[in-house]
């Protein structure tokens, strides 16, 4: 609950500009939601309302689509996003232990954001780096051949 969404006029204008373009094409909702996720970092209700009005579909439908897909979120994420790959190749090489260690050390449940808004911990699907398994990413930087021992070190560097 730590992080806050920042809905500025500038960002809203950017969203309108994008929708203006997508409205001309068939199936505009998915590209619009991708843009909204990118612009705001999440798609909270006020943003869903804007999209509903502009594309002339009910907010219920928009909300249904937003919550269906794992890539979209309705709540903002923490400053640092730690994702541990739970794809098969990583799992059989022990990535669950790495995820548990992060959860334990950061005191945050999987899929949630820490009190101070510093960390969001996620379990992610295969990122296709199976040759480097087990892997985890911190803010999109990939850590290859991960281990439980690496967890403490990584957290220390991030907290600095």
């Amino acid at each position, binding site marked *: 609950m730590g992080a806050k969404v920042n809905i500025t006029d500038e960002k809203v204008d950017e969203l309108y500009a994008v929708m203006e373009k997508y409205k001309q094409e068939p*199936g505009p909702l998915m590209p619009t939601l991708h843009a909204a996720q990118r612009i705001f970092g999440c798609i909270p209700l006020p943003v869903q309302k804007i999209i509903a009005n502009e594309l002339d579909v009910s907010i219920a439908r928009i909300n249904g689509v937003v919550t269906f897909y794992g890539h979209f979120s309705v709540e903002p994420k923490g400053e640092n996003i730690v994702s541990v790959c739970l794809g098969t190749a990583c799992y059989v*090489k022990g990535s669950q232990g790495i995820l*548990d260690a992060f959860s334990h050390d950061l005191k945050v449940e999987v899929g949630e954001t820490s009190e101070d808004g510093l960390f969001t911990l996620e379990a992610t699907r295969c990122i296709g780096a199976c040759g480097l398994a087990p892997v985890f990413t911190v803010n999109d930087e990939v850590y290859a051949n991960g281990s439980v021992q690496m967890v403490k070190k990584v957290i220390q560097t991030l907290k600095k």
Partner: protein
Amino acid sequence: MLDRMHILICGGTECKESNSLELRDKFNSEINKLALGDDVKTILTGCFGLCALGPHVVVYPGETLYSGVKVEDVPQIVEQHIKNGKPVERLLYKGEFNRNKFRNRSELTFFARQKRIALRNCGVIDPLNINEYIARQGYEALGKVLTKMTPEEVIDEMKKSGLRGRGGGGFPTGLKWEFARKSVSEQKFVICNADEGDPGAFMDRAVLEGDPHSVLEAMAICGYAIGADTGYIYIRAEYPVAVARLEEAIQQAKDLGVLGDNLFGSDFSFNIELRLGAGAFVCGEETALIASIEGERGMPRKKPPFPAVKGLFGKPTNVNNVETFANIPVIFLKGADWFKSIGTEKSSGTKVFALGGKIANTGLLEIPMGTTLREVIYEIGGGIPNKREFKAVQTGGPSGGCITKESLDTPIDFDNLIGLGSMMGSGGMIIMDEDNCMVDVARFYLEFTVDESCGKCTPCREGTKRMLDILNRICAGQGTLEDLDVLESLGNMIKDSSLCGLGQTAPNPVLSTLKHFRDEYLAHVVDKVCPAGVCSHLTNYVITDACIGCTKCARNCPVGAIEGTVKGKHTIDPSICVKCGACKTACPVNAISTDPEDWKVA
């Protein structure tokens, strides 16, 4: 001017994560320093396939393969090899022969045993340069099809080739095209399914990153055959490199006139657009994918009507996956008879597999259908590392099953794998050794399907959830013998009554492990022991007399549960131990045991 030498640097996702971009910059600056810039060219290619040891660099002529190259190694390679023609022995790939004699990439068993059709250009050309694709006969097939063949002839050739869908189903591609051709409509669509969601499979990503034009060309051929002028590529948002390269490739193809209006002077026009997936595994199912492009929740639709009759925006649509498309230009260049001559009677051609898990050569490989599992695992894959015993190979991801060592000599094709209770799937191949618990593996896959079930039909939504509850109970040591029977009957019911492929195959990992590894289930349920030492409620870590007192385990323990003096036998305090296995990995003499026999002694 012709370049005297080429330096190919692997720019696949995994090598990029190991800094291959910095490598290229360093190569360029070193080359310029020695004023060799005029006759040496560096190229960032797609994936080479040997992902575990990256980043890789190949130098032509000579096809010298370097692996694990670091930025600080570059000056030596440039000075010694590029300038003076003497390869740097210490950096040569030595995975196979410990002697330094080996250099040539194609001599390596890993490559020599492969037959690369779909991956023909991956790791060979610069994917961002359309001219390199054209130099390898790119867009020639499209030209031939548009100028010399009727759509009916194209479909006949496809049917003759025997190509079957590489996305998992194995449906004959030519037949699929024929259905779409026969549907009458003003507007039709071609969709490329690049929503590769199967955990542990990344062949589609490799093709899109390493050879995007082959997919664009094939989609245009398909458009001509079925009568469509618009194509969509539905690609995972998790593949940013592939998305960027596709965007670039589409632009290049438009600029050059191989995509767009009146291609090759004909009256056929074709355009391609990208659509990003948003992290839903079920969107790999073609009707769910179509729903997603339309802006709906990605839920499968009832078939019939099939997409060939009523697909995207209600129009006839043909959906093929990336690897299927990547095969198609070659079929029209070399002929259906040539393609049919490769592979087995009912599964012609090759298949790309992503080899992962407990295997020496993790990576990507393409083999003729009919190659045996043993050849893939032990010859191409290099066997199981760390002197561990092979236990099972899992194919087909969450839809597939486990294959045991008794069946390793089975030739791989669509029908044989189904016969073994597994399936081809998109081509993930995960190797498991004695340290993997099969009950836990089944639970892992089921957790995945429960998470990804779209919730539309009850058997899949509720049934898989109940199966997972039972498996969680078993792994926690609270399972009963009746649970095993319930798992079986529930699994068969879900298979028979689910709406789409996801539900119809979701119980497979459980059913196949129940069949082949019933003893492990019994150990969990009856003896309350996890033989592999994975399920933490059912295992104990103890240190045996083999301990040499090196203190490595104590230093690696994240919770400080291990005590002992230097050169003295160490002990684990079970009340502190979190059973993470870090000590077992660290121990140099294999003195950490999860064997129930050892618990008593300790």
